[in-house]
């Protein structure tokens, strides 16, 4: 599959999804929005891909919807009304039901809609010069889905402050790390992709099927209370019983070799 606004690559077991509109800070136009849906599905269905890394070309990671397109083509935000009212959206791995591990590597600015991919991935790292802010309220827009996703995953006050400060304040990578929004700051910044590849290769050493079931249990826990989440988690846990990886893991450990996992 070929893409105009994204680059899809494979490096060993790691699939890469790269935002590729650097001249507009990787803002998402309608075409790119459609391409995201296809790119996540392509990487999810490729058995050679065990982990997906998502980053951006150019100086910035992602800056939300392309307001240039919205302002100039006479359709404006109306184009998204129905999909938003129905919450029928398909541009993140979570929207697309991707159960492979997803690592977001934030380069430069991540603002507004860019938070969708921070909120919806499993592991987030950032370059030391990365900056986070949410300008929606500064341009008369409502902050909702991406901030809701973040609030489920990190201290709420920091998210509310970003929502209300709009474009008038930025959060640095170090603060995002302290808050647990990200788990690693890469310095110097140009080492970001190398580190993401390394992390991806490490994650790829684990059982694909066990990781998929674990993801389902953990993301499912955001949908419900503690006890119900554990009951549903038990179903995902039991789903692996009898799977060849459950014998292969301990055997490989005993024989001091890398496990030979079943592909997902």
């Amino acid at each position: 599959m070929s893409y105009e606004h994204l680059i899809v690559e494979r490096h060993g077991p790691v699939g890469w999804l790269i935002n590729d509109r650097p001249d507009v800070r990787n803002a998402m136009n309608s075409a790119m929005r459609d391409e995201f849906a296809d790119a996540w599905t392509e990487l999810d269905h490729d058995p050679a891909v065990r982990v997906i890394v998502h980053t951006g070309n150019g100086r910035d990671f992602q800056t939300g919807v392309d307001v240039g397109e919205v302002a100039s083509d006479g359709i404006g935000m109306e184009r998204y009304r129905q999909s938003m009212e129905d919450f029928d959206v398909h541009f993140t791995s979570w929207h697309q039901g991707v159960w492979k591990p997803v690592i977001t590597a934030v380069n430069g600015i991540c603002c507004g809609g860019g938070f969708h991919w921070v909120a919806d991935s499993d592991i987030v790292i950032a370059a030391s010069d990365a900056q986070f802010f949410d300008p929606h309220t500064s341009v008369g827009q409502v902050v909702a889905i991406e901030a809701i996703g973040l609030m489920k995953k990190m201290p709420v006050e920091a998210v509310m402050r970003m929502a209300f400060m709009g474009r008038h304040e930025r959060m640095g990578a170090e603060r995002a790390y302290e808050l647990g929004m990200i788990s690693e700051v890469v310095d110097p910044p140009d080492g970001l992709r190398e580190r993401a590849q390394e992390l991806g290769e490490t994650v790829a050493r684990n059982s694909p099927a066990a990781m998929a079931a674990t993801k389902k249990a953990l993301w499912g826990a955001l949908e419900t209370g503690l006890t119900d989440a554990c009951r549903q988690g038990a179903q995902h846990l039991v789903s692996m019983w009898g799977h060849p990886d459950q014998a292969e893991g301990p055997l490989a450990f005993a024989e001091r070799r890398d496990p030979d996992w079943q592909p997902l």
Partner: protein
Amino acid sequence: MTYETLEVWAEGPVGWLVFNRPEASNAIDARMFVELEAAWAELEADPSVRAIVNTGNGQAFQTGLDVKQFATDPDALRASSRQTRDFALRMTSWHCGVTKPVIAAVNGTCAGGGLHFVADSDIVVAAEDATFLDPHVSVGQVSAFETIGLIKKAPMESVTRMALMGAHERLSAARAHQLGIVSEVVAASDLRDRARTLALSLAEHPPARIASIKQALWSALEAP
């Protein structure tokens, strides 16, 4: 009850529940699986005990199920499998409905199922050299209950990262402190003294009030 795999005693108002299989990194064998339920029940029933400290003997805090030992004991394996499938576990204070405050004092490695005892306690302190990891996916197992518990209490990304990195990465005590998974890091030699001091101060509050606060706060985690 006479315990083989735990040390359980009351020291004034402080109840101690100490994992005692140091030669096996305190992994839970079939015997400990049964003894844990009895120990929580004993400390909960003892009116002199007003706060409980949970820690481990030796280098490790707790490293989860001793899978090798369970494999040799079909009855125990069946029992633990049934409790897992039905989420009817009786290993932690939360599983056993303990109403008294529980302090986990993490003295070393806390791996896999060991995270149950961190997720399910009220206060967590750790030794400087304590580490946290979740190797389940590295041996073909699913991580669920203990990481679900942590997700409800700590920033999620740090938990999903731990679950997906498996045996290949450890979270330090310092980072666990920064993330709010533990509230205090002390020198290993001071850990039990510090846990005792915290327990003694909790013991000064009326037990009924502590129990109702504990119930109210844990109930809040049951809302979607």
